[in-house]
């Protein structure tokens, strides 16, 4: 009996803590979104209220969509993020495999060399990167952003993936090798599927800073054609800082795609992580 009560209160405690933190996480985002749908007076007089028929207004959204090519910004961000992500995951998995599987002269040093990138923000090399971009004639292209983000994301991805690769049972690989399976086939058909959960984790970690980066778009690709959402929003806020309708609407628009994409992908992500655990 007491055990049951204990269990019940433990469940209640768990739910309470989780709900509390969920509330804290959601509150700012919800606040922005509800106020984005209100008129200026509505925003100021009662920020916490839901939009009513009196205060409901879409003026902010009209302004944002009229004044800035938001969908285009979004498309740019998507291309850069997905492009970088695919390359990082592929190249990092390949490198991690080579480093953890093949012991060759200097492999340790190579691993250390590649790990340095985790520690140093690549931003410190901005001016040289810009000079490179000019040399390759890549300024104001999405290509240069992808290249820089791949360089930036590789070290951490290699490190995390190496850790996972080391945990793959030796027997699996040796068995395949005994059957005469080629190294490339082993990598693509046996190893990659095995590290899927790790790949999911790495994907999230590398995707986030890329999507949110303000710095490199600003320096390397500030042209209107190549602006990303983050840069677009920053410029928009700078321009309309006191026009709260427009600012809140632009924030909502910037948040919404991430929100949708995440809700869609998070099931995949969590399944990936759990699948790895159950193995």
């Amino acid at each position: 009996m007491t055990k049951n009560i204990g269990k019940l209160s433990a469940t209640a405690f768990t739910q309470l803590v989780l709900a509390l933190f969920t509330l804290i996480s959601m509150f700012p985002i919800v606040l922005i979104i509800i106020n984005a749908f209100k008129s200026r007076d509505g925003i100021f007089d009662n920020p916490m209220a839901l939009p009513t028929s009196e205060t409901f207004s879409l003026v902010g959204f009209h302004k944002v969509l009229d004044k800035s090519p938001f969908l285009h910004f979004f498309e740019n961000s998507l291309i850069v993020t997905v492009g970088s992500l695919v390359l990082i995951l592929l190249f990092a998995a390949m490198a991690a495999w080579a480093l953890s599987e093949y012991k060759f002269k200097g492999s340790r040093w190579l691993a250390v060399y590649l790990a340095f990138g985790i520690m140093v923000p690549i931003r410190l090399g901005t001016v040289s990167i810009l000079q490179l971009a000019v040399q390759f004639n890549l300024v104001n292209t999405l290509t240069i952003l992808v290249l820089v983000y791949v360089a930036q994301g590789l070290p951490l991805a290699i490190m995390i993936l190496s850790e996972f690769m080391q945990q793959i049972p030796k027997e699996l690989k040796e068995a395949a090798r005994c059957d005469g399976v080629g190294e490339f086939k082993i990598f693509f058909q046996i190893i990659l599927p095995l590290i899927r959960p790790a790949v999911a984790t790495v994907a999230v970690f590398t995707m986030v800073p890329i999507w949110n980066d303000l710095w490199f778009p600003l320096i390397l690709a500030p042209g209107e054609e190549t602006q990303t959402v983050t840069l677009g929003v920053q410029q928009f806020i700078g321009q309309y800082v006191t026009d709260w309708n427009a600012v809140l609407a632009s924030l909502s628009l910037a948040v919404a795609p991430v929100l949708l994409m995440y809700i869609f992908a998070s099931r995949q992500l969590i399944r990936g992580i759990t699948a790895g655990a159950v193995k």
Partner: protein
Amino acid sequence: MQAKRFTRAALIAALMTAGLAQAGSLTIESWRVDDKALWEDVLIPAFNKKYPDIKVKFSPTAPTEYDSSLTARLTGGTAGDLITLRPFDKSLDLFKKGQIEALNGKKGIENFPASAKVAWQTDDGKTVFGLPMASVIHGILYNKKVFQELNLQPPKTTDEFFKVAEAIKKSGKYTPIALGTADQWEANQIVFTSFGAPYWKGEEGRKALIAGKEKFTDAPFVAAFDFESKLAPYLAKGYQAQTYGDTQTLFASGKAAMVPAGSWDISYYNTNAKFELGAFPPPVPKAGDKCYISDHTDIGMGVNSKSKNKDDAYKFVEWMGSQEFADLYTNKVTGFFSLSSHLIAVKDPVAKQMLDWRKSCSSTIRLNAQIMNRGEPNMENELWNVNSQVLNGKMTAKDAAARIQTGFEKWYKPGK
């Protein structure tokens, strides 16, 4: 081999996507994001009436990122053809590094008086590298409705100023002064160097500092800091976290009676405030004193020395020196006053009023703009910090003056 293939692939990708400025088109770098629509709808079409073949693009970066991203783009050789220039040393530095062209003898420049060109020339005055575009005048804007309701007159002296503020505070309905210290720059640029000018008698004090004849620890400068330290009781609650945007929102909403501001704010309040706007110059210490205004040369235009299209850039600069541009710029960008010698009729009443102060008061520029920002510690940054602390009640006027003077003395030898 791998590297070569990689380079080639990169080059091909670049060819497919690159879109750099070519001959026949000009890109303007600027921090005036607010003016984007105006350039696109008014100024560039006006220019194109004269030069239909030159395609002009106005490409602004938010003010906070402007300097750093411009530096990066200039270094990388990707900056636009025309560069909007900050006044004095920041641009002088660009010129010294060979990043912008000298404009001596170029058409358009002759339409500006020497006083306007000071901000964009070498120390010896021999080389001009920027076309003066506009100045801004600092002053205090007030809500006429509130003043009428409380039966108040725009103050002339500092005593009157505090009496007015006190009366507004007593009424309990309005914040007397809309001002915050979160962004810091206002504390220096629109409080200290604007309200302080009458204390140090504008140019007289500014030049004496440069000549080493006066010090920041001398009475007029300490008095300016002291004035500032008395403002706190009249600011909104939580002003320490109030940004400039908050200040604008607060004053525009009609909940504050006065705002220390500059002429650039007129157009914002014209569109966003629902009451009639008034303006008065910084109050003077004693009745009958001469008034001084900070009439700051703020925006210039230079030509990128790496521009591939300098001829067209010079044509644009020439056009910027014309009567037409001066008129359009002054009247469409309300609150930015053309620096050219052309006669221009200002249409906005508040802008006109502020411009007329040039006749009744003495003009000066921001105290530290010329020469004083050159060394380390950087005086502009120091003044932001120190003035914010004075407003926040964290530093006394005396300490503030001493700190600025110590930093200045560290590197500056007068008459050098």
